[in-house]
């Protein structure tokens, strides 16, 4: 098992390198000369040159990249243009918030999605299947922020069941933390649930067509036993893939949701950094999220090896 993880980690390395290139390259796309804007208006050419050499912008590209990379590996992601704090401190403050939101969202989405998918898959082609498929289509079509707005309108403003916007830290008050996250999680998670339900259904159908399921029937096993012992485990594999993919995509969707619900996570940090052209912060967020996606993929791979013995042999 450890060997498998180590192998997967080593495969990540080339990806990490390319990711770091891409992130670094993004800053090069920025029009204008940061030295000029930092030096301020009415700066003399000497002043600009001075600022430039201070920032290390006069060094060759490769050297700049390596310096930056070295800094990153030591945890130094630069300083925010806006508030002067280090990027890493800003990130570490926001990361737990986003992880909390993502966890609640995934929990909701997986539970609802897998259940619906299994129910639909076992009775493929029938009425239940059609209903579930239609509902998943709708779930995928409704924009998550629109859903969020409607929920705010009806659940918070009209019915006053849950708070509309805002965030309370888990450590301060767990109940309030959850209450503030319910609507955002439903808004974020419904499309995810729909996607998971789809994949689960397809997967269950697929597995039920396999010959070894027929063998299980030939042994005289009951429906429930077959579903749990023979169908569920192989069916999990594509579902795990989807959950992983969706988890990776959550950060994108959460940019809008966090803005909408005033949740101080990575998503809203990303938005603000783009809005304020605060490139070190943007760089940091993009880097962290890409690494996060790689880690999620790693977890997915490890889960495969746990579920499917054939994978362990690789």
């Amino acid at each position, binding site marked *: 098992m450890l060997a498998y993880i180590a192998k997967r980690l080593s495969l990540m390395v080339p990806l990490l390198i390319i990711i770091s290139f891409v992130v670094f390259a993004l800053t090069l796309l920025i029009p204008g000369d940061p030295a000029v804007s930092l030096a301020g208006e009415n700066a003399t050419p000497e002043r600009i040159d001075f600022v430039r050499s201070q920032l290390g912008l006069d060094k060759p590209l490769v050297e700049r990249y390596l310096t930056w990379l070295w800094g990153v590996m030591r945890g130094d992601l630069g300083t925010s243009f806006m508030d002067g704090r280090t990027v890493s401190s800003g990130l570490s403050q926001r990361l737990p918030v986003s992880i909390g939101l993502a966890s609640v969202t995934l929990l909701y989405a997986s539970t609802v999605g897998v259940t619906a998918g299994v129910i639909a898959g076992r009775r493929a082609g029938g009425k239940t299947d059609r209903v579930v498929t239609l509902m998943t289509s709708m779930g995928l079509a409704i924009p998550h922020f629109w859903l969020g707005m409607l929920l705010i309108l009806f659940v918070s403003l009209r019915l006053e069941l849950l708070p509309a916007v805002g965030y309370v830290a888990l450590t301060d008050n767990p109940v309030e933390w959850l209450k503030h996250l319910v609507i955002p999680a439903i808004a974020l998670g419904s499309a995810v649930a729909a996607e998971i339900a789809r994949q689960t259904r397809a997967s269950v159908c697929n597995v039920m067509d*396999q*010959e*070894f399921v*027929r*063998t*299980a*029937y*030939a*042994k*005289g*096993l*009951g429906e429930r*036993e077959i579903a749990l*012992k*023979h169908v569920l*485990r*192989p069916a999990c594999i594509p579902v795990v893939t989807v959950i992983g993919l969706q988890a990776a995509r959550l950060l994108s969707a959460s940019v809008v949701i966090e803005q909408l619900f005033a949740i101080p996570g990575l998503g809203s940090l990303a938005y603000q950094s783009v809005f304020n052209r605060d490139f070190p912060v943007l760089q940091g967020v993009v880097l962290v999220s890409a690494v996060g996606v790689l880690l999620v993929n790693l977890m997915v791979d490890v889960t495969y090896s746990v*579920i*499917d*013995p*054939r994978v362990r*042999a690789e």
Partner: protein
Amino acid sequence: MAKNVAEEVEASSSSSPLLSVEGASVEFWTGSSWLRVVDQVSFVVPAGGRVGIVGESGSGKTMTGLAILGLIPGPAGRLAEGSIKFDGHDLAQLPPAEMRRIRGNDIAMVFQEPMRSLNPMMSIGDQIAEGMRRHWGWSKKKATNRAIELLDRVEIPAAAQRAREYPHHLSGGMRQRAMIALALACDPKLLIADEPTTALDVTVQAQIIELFRELSDERDMALLFITHDLGVVSELCSDLVVMYSGQVVETGDVDRVFDRPTHPYTEGLLQSLPKLGAGNRELGFIPGNPPDPAALPPGCRFQPRCPHALPICETSQPELLTIGDRQSRCLLNSELSLQGVGS
């Protein structure tokens, strides 16, 4: 109405057969109508006997085997008519719970592709033990021990080790042996084997067939062997059922049928068997293909490929006639003198 063998046998012998299929038909829903792929099939398997069902692919032989165990892929497929009498019950009318009791327990089945028929994520031992735990209520330990014994019996070396392994660790031949062990788990009275040797090497085939023979003898277990290979049937079975295009076209004792077949299709199959020591004689084969079940010829289904066909064969559908202890579905039955192979 064709007289079926079951009635004959019942009349003549004191003990009734273990399995008696009468007029069984299997149909599939095409999206607009029901398409019949097995048409009024009748045959008998005596207790402890070995019967071979022979036919090309598309003859309906696999579906017949699945029909016995109630494993026709639904809901698009169904057993449209007929009875499947086993041990005093009509399996076709049995409620699902009763049927489950019989599957894997009294009647077991071995399938064609062992790699696909075994669960890739369960250990071999667990899969074999499942049946015993379900039908006999045994503990995991007890069932696994017996599973190891069975693996040993089917001549898998290092059985205890193998029981802990997964199907992908085993070679093709060993996987099939494992499947056989699985089928034997609850000492079934009848073992249905659907082309168990087709996906294997020739040398391994011979070993597996020998294994079937031994198992059938020592356990007094009846065997229904479904195959397209007449050679295998001649080695293993005592009785033969030949199927073509969903119908039974000939039945009888293997040696007698080989010696003198009564249906041109059987004759064709026998002629296409490779014969040792025949020198450079060409391998005979039957030209053409079986008819599309949705576009059957008006008369005899074999007529388009039959070298002995007469005009009447194009218009009349032959019934399955009983002559002594054999059956044959050919209009020209009494006139033809067909060539067999000495066994």
